[in-house]
């Protein structure tokens, strides 16, 4: 028994509707991203108090945690979009999944790099082969694998399918990253934000962090939409509405 999907689901599947809808969203997300990131950075760098143990190196948290959260959410989004594309044969979903990969890879690099830099003054080492760090490195390799696989096919439909399957298989790494700090003995500290408990740090420390996390998400939305829009135009280049867009550009 197949249930009918709501109307917006089919609308979203229309490339033209997607293009117009994201045109309307882009300025709002851009403004929000700038506002949140500037506020969060100044708040975190200048006004948040230093950690009593880690001193000022603690301020790296305002980059490292949002980057790590985003790198993982982006992966989940890529896999879910790929699954939607596979199940409902929705091309837009594949477009979105394809746009996720390069952004996610760059953000995973940010997470690993800032983590290494934070590790030096805190643990005394740039890198340790610890469960959290290793599983995060695997996430980066998965992104690179998805990008490489996607570009290995001449045929777009085969590339879409293959990358969707690879991202779905790689999804198993996400809970491993999440629980790595609980399952194994690790140097890495546990999560700052959890759904069930209040953060262990005072509000003047975690509020700017929350602002940064939201800012990272808005930034991601802006870049994702921009990349997906170009891909939509590329795939629909034979249609009349795309020709009109090109002429008016």
């Amino acid at each position: 028994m197949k249930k009918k999907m709501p109307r917006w689901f089919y609308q979203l599947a229309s490339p033209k509707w997607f293009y117009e809808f994201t045109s309307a969203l882009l300025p709002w997300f851009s403004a929000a991203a700038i506002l949140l990131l500037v506020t969060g950075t100044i708040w975190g760098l200048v006004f948040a108090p230093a950690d009593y143990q880690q001193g000022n190196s603690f301020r790296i948290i305002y980059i490292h945690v949002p980057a790590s959260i985003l790198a993982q959410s982006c992966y989940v989004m890529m896999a879910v979009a790929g699954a939607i594309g596979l199940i409902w044969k929705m091309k837009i979903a594949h477009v979105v999944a394809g746009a996720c990969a390069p952004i996610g890879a760059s953000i995973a690099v940010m997470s690993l790099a800032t983590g290494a830099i934070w590790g030096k003054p805190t643990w005394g080492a740039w890198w340790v082969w610890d469960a959290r760090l290793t599983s995060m490195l695997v996430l980066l390799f998965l992104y690179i694998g998805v990008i490489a696989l996607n570009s290995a096919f001449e045929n777009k439909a085969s590339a879409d399918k293959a990358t969707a399957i690879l991202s779905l298989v790689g999804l198993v790494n996400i809970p491993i990253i999440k629980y790595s700090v609980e399952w194994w003995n690790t140097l890495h500290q546990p999560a700052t934000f959890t759904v069930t408990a209040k953060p262990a740090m005072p509000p003047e420390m975690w509020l700017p962090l929350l602002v940064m996390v939201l800012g990272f998400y808005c930034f991601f939305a802006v870049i994702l939409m921009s990349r997906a829009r170009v891909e939509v135009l590329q795939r629909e280049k034979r249609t009349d509405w795309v020709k009109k867009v090109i002429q008016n550009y």
Partner: protein
Amino acid sequence: MGYFSSVTDFLQMGTHGLYVWLSYGIALVIFIYNIFSAYWLKRQYFINAKRRLRREQGTV
């Protein structure tokens, strides 16, 4: 100035200036890279698409 007693104090971040500024620098570079690559993608698309469209219309 916020939590810090002076601008020098802020720039030095206690003894962690190098680590903090390096992290924020890397983040900035990756942000700029993302903005620039998305912009570049769009620019290249429209340059090529306009050329193709002109060529197609020229032959009709």
